[in-house]
């Protein structure tokens, strides 16, 4: 009766809560994961016959816990296995006694599980891999495909990351308010890393689905901490950016600038959710970097037509982001808004002092070239575009700039320099 797709979905949905409760119990990531795997195997046997349990998460936690304990006892005493019937009767008895645990009950457990994935010793790529494996439950092969490495290499990466986490020790005490806030900030940053890993993939590759995973983790986190404006901001930011996915590249796979995108291709449902969340966040009047970035994304998403974009407001938001989280990349992004409100000359002055720090940054020269082009200085624009091409991270970036250069040549031929192009840096916070 209970079909496999349903079981699969229920297991995926239950995974973060179940694994984190098992981690609290066993205090060992490997044991917790094995216990969960065992519980899933038993669910696949039991649920189709007996029907789904009322609370799949509680079922998986209890069955996983008992299975791991039985395994440990067996190994300790080397006694024969109890037969299958005895085992499953035992499980059913315990499960009916289980209290129904709501999400709040799992709050610190899930936060802990997410937090062990973002240990400061772990490089970004390992944090992402660990979270995808342990929290999202992606198979090693799927994660390997997302990062274009072999399965063996990814397996090693995850094993190394786990060993490091084990050495550092999992923090098991219940966190106080300060610890909780710190963990929350670290976890938010890690989730945004997962998102950016997906966002940076332009094509619909295995990597692009990391955006969906990050959004799922963001919703999970917000359900646990439903009054945290920065978590609302983080989720809103990811939703609003992800909503534009289909419009970000054209049929040839080339980059389409935000202002040239076909708004009909934007995902209206994701935008609605993102806007609802940023509205909620702003009511708290506790601005933070994610909220500000989400508010900027919302100003791009809200108007029906590109020309109605409120650039003055975007400029003001970037200015507050600069104060909160000073970074040359933020200033570079602000220059885009400044060019719209106060003209390309002011914007060029704004980014000129950044050249020292952004001299190796593709988007710096892309933006500089665009501004010079608007100022009818084609020679210098060409120079900037050439440097951008030299710094391009992938063929799509290079192709995008080459198209601007071709445009430049055509315009030169017609001595018409009305080309407008502004390059927005990718969404990373810093």
């Amino acid at each position, binding site marked *: 009766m209970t079909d496999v797709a349903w079981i699969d979905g229920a297991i*995926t949905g239950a995974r973060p809560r179940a694994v984190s409760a098992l981690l609290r119990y066993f205090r060992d990531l490997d044991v917790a994961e094995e216990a969960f795997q065992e519980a899933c195997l038993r669910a696949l046997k039991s649920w189709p016959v007996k029907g789904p349990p009322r609370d799949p998460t509680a079922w998986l936690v209890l069955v996983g816990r008992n299975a791991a304990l039985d395994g440990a006892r067996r190994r300790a005493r080397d006694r024969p296995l109890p037969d299958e019937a005895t085992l499953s009767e035992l499980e059913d008895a315990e499960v009916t006694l289980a209290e129904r645990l709501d999400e709040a009950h799992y709050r610190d457990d899930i936060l802990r599980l997410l937090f062990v994935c973002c240990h400061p010793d772990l490089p970004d790529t390992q944090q992402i891999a660990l979270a995808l494996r342990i929290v999202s439950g992606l198979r090693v092969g799927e994660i390997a495909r997302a990062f274009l490495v072999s399965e063996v290499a990814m397996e090693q990466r995850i094993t190394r990351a786990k060993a490091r986490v084990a050495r550092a020790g999992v923090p098991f005490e219940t966190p106080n308010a300060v610890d909780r806030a710190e963990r929350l900030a670290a976890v938010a940053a890690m989730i945004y890393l997962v998102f950016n890993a997906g966002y940076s993939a332009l094509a619909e590759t295995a990597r692009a689905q990391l955006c969906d995973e990050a959004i*799922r983790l963001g919703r999970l986190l917000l359900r646990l901490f*439903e009054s945290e404006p920065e978590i609302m901001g983080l989720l809103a930011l990811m939703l609003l950016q992800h909503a534009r996915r289909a419009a970000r590249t054209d049929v040839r796979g080339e980059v389409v600038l935000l202002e040239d995108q076909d708004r009909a291709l934007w995902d209206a449902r994701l935008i609605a*959710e993102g806007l*609802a*969340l940023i*509205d*909620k966040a702003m*009511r708290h009047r506790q601005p933070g970097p994610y909220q500000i970035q989400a508010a900027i994304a919302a100003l791009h998403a809200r108007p029906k037509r590109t020309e109605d974009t409120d650039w003055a407001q975007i400029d003001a938001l970037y200015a507050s982001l600069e104060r909160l989280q000073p970074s040359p990349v933020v200033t570079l992004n602000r220059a885009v808004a400044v060019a719209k409100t106060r003209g390309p000359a002011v914007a060029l002055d704004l980014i000129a002092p950044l050249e020292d720090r952004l001299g190796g940054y593709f988007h710096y020269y892309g933006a500089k070239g665009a501004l010079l082009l608007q100022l009818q200085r084609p020679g210098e624009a060409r120079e900037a575009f050439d440097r951008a091409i030299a710094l391009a991270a992938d063929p799509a970036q290079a192709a995008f700039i080459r198209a601007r250069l071709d445009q430049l040549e055509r315009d030169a031929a017609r001595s018409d320099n009305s080309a407008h192009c502004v390059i927005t840096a990718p969404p990373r916070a810093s």
Partner: protein
Amino acid sequence: MQYAILCYHDEGHVWSWSKEEEEAVMGRLAEARGRLTARGKLGASLRLLPTTAATTLRKSQDPPLVIDGPFAETKEQLLGLYLIDANDLDDALEVARELAKANPGGAYEIRPIAVYNVDARAAAASVEIV
């Protein structure tokens, strides 16, 4: 007699559906809706965004209190719903506050709508509300 069918499920599960799964379910539902509409059985239907997008107006006190998240008390029951047009959350809260003045006590959960299927029954078949 008109009935409301209220849909309950684990949103962690439903919003984890893969794109294929989502499309398969929505495809089956569109067919079912089509059949029911043709028989004059089905009025408007809607799908809500996740509870993370919800805000609750506690109107058991004056002025009412705005709380993040869905309405989660179990001692109160779902008694009805309004469909409103609002520019943003503040606008929606404005509407809710006005309704609250007329009917204090309890709470309103303000939840954005993800999908809204209009009432496609024949206009001629006037519906009596009992």
